[in-house]
């Protein structure tokens, strides 16, 4: 059974009606439990739970400290190419947008890597648009091989690939994959992705599982908050994480909460969500999946990120630039506007002030990684 089948099971049910049926008493009952069911998760994202955020926060804080300690892993994104054949209506890399397209050469990559690693960052997230010709798996492999000289953990956020391709990338040195479904509602998904290979909902949905099967050490998922009705989107994200975590217990899973940001091109956010809702989703994730990492990017503003610290966050990006080549050359259009423009050092200082240890290195590249090559 794939996760798609599980989604189908829930699709037939009227989740919205169910969500509005929870009472205060249901929420308190869930807060007393140690092991939550998917129905309990629904209770935590229901309107009734909105009145219990503080109680949820206290428990989320306690669980996070117990599982992860007072430590936050820092990473930086590096956009290595922005060629894209898709037409995601919400994204500035959209094929139809007039945007200077670029792909880093090895030399340009080195310049970016030198800049980023000089700030102390050892965990890098390499991103591309979707173009198998401009950012082919072979090109990405070349970059990953080079990236090992500068970074100790390499996560990819690239177009969905096959299991074999992931195995090759792991062999080259990648240890993590981030792949957002963007929106779990299949009908909305079709609207948001009118053309291009990304239109294939199911292939994208099964991508994190292919990465787990290939032996990726860390896999990150998420829904782009704002595209679909947030409660059901959060529910399917949580279910997806739980499904992967049960089936692949040796993979370190993480959930991101990317909230859609203004960008090049015009797009009205269909379901804009506020800070309260954002916090409610994050707390519900933590309570439902205490062992799963939670990543917050610089899409969120500095003050808000600082306040989220005690509520379940385990990984943060810092000093991010979302334009290709942007670390060494300040021009160029990013994929989205960064809201937290602080430097890595400023974020580091803030963490210490808040009583958290900034962790720059939480993985060590070991040769011949990956399940395939370990002989399992």
């Amino acid at each position, binding site marked *: 059974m794939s996760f798609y089948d599980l989604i189908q099971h829930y699709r037939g049910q009227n989740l919205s009606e169910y969500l509005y049926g929870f009472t205060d008493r249901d929420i308190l009952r869930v807060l007393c439990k140690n092991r939550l069911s998917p129905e309990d998760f629904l209770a935590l994202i229901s309107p009734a739970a909105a009145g219990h955020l503080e109680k949820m926060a206290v428990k989320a804080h306690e669980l996070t*400290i117990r*599982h992860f*300690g*007072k*430590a936050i892993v820092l990473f930086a994104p590096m956009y290595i190419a922005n060629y894209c054949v898709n037409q995601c209506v919400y994204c500035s890399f959209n094929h139809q947008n007039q945007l200077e397209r670029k792909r880093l050469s090895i030399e340009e990559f080195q310049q970016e890597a030198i800049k980023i690693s000089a700030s102390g960052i050892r965990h890098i997230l390499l991103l591309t648009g979707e173009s198998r010709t401009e950012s082919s798996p072979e090109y990405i492999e070349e970059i990953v091989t080079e990236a090992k000289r500068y970074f100790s953990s390499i996560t990819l956020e690239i177009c969905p690939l096959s299991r074999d391709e992931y195995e090759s990338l792991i062999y080259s040195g990648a240890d993590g994959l981030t792949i957002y479904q963007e929106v779990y509602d299949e009908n909305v998904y079709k609207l948001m992705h009118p053309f291009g290979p990304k239109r294939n909902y199911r292939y994208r949905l099964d991508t994190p599982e292919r990465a787990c099967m290939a032996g990726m050490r860390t896999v990150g998922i998420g829904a782009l908050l704002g595209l679909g009705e947030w409660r059901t989107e959060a529910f399917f994200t949580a279910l997806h994480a739980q499904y992967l975590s049960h089936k692949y*217990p040796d993979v370190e899973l993480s959930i991101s909460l990317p909230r859609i940001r203004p960008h090049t091109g015009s797009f009205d956010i269909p379901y804009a969500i506020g800070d309260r809702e954002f916090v409610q989703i994050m707390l519900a994730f933590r309570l439902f999946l205490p062992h799963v990492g939670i990543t917050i990017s610089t899409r969120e503003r500095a003050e808000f990120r600082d306040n989220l610290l005690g509520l379940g966050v385990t990984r943060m990006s810092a000093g991010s630039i979302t334009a290709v080549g942007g670390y060494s050359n300040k021009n160029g259009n990013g994929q989205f506007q960064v809201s937290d423009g602080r430097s890595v050092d400023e974020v580091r200082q803030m963490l210490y002030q808040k009583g958290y240890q900034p*962790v720059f*290195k939480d993985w*060590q590249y070991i040769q011949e990684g990956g399940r395939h090559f*370990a002989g399992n």
Partner: protein
Amino acid sequence: MDDQLIIGNKRIFNRLFVGSGKYSSNRLIPHIMQESGSQVITVAVRRVDLESTEENLLNHIPAAAILMPNTSGARNAGEAVRIAKLARAMGCGNWIKIEVIADSRYLLPDNQDTLKATEILVTEGFTVFPYMRPELMTARRMRDAGASAVMPLGAPIGTNQGLKTRELIKIMIDEIDIPVIVDAGIGKPSEAAEAMELGAAAVLVNTAIATAGNPVEMAAAFSLAVKAGRKAYLAGTAPVFHLAQASSPLTGFLDKDNGDL
């Protein structure tokens, strides 16, 4: 005579081993070690960054401390062996705590692969400390393979539940002739004392210290508890009876009339 634990060529007088993860700042580590008197500290190789000066964990560890690098992050024996070799190449010495964990939810160690890694690393010349689920047969095999100690868990990592595996650990202590070091799960000093009273050679505590309100004070409290438990074990704890001992024993008459014997 001093009560010391000798492992490899190291003499250990303080039987509280500490961890180095989960602290709000690595700068706490020297204070923790000083206040507790702890000599042995375990360090995740994955967190060691030799290229960073300020954020290099190793720079915060007192020079006199005994370093026990661990293979945190290894999912199988092969990865544990590679991480161990990296630790040695990084200059972290010859000791290695093997952690093989393939379940991110409960963080329970994989005894089979841990044994496999133990066998390989002993032949490579490491002083090996396997972290394991308490189980006598596997512990014996680890000892036969040349492990310098075994490290059974008291409860799953980070849970602070105490000695949930007490009876199994007791059997290991009674039956295994290498040091048994209780690692993981100990949440309070009283539980550390309990492990030491049972006859554990040492205890390793991380989460309970790192996430305490005052980690430095808590480390000192653990150190006292470990000393108390050890002293009680050496003194020979008095037996426990379920019935009160009558002051006029039922068989007292046997003592009165023994002149004929």
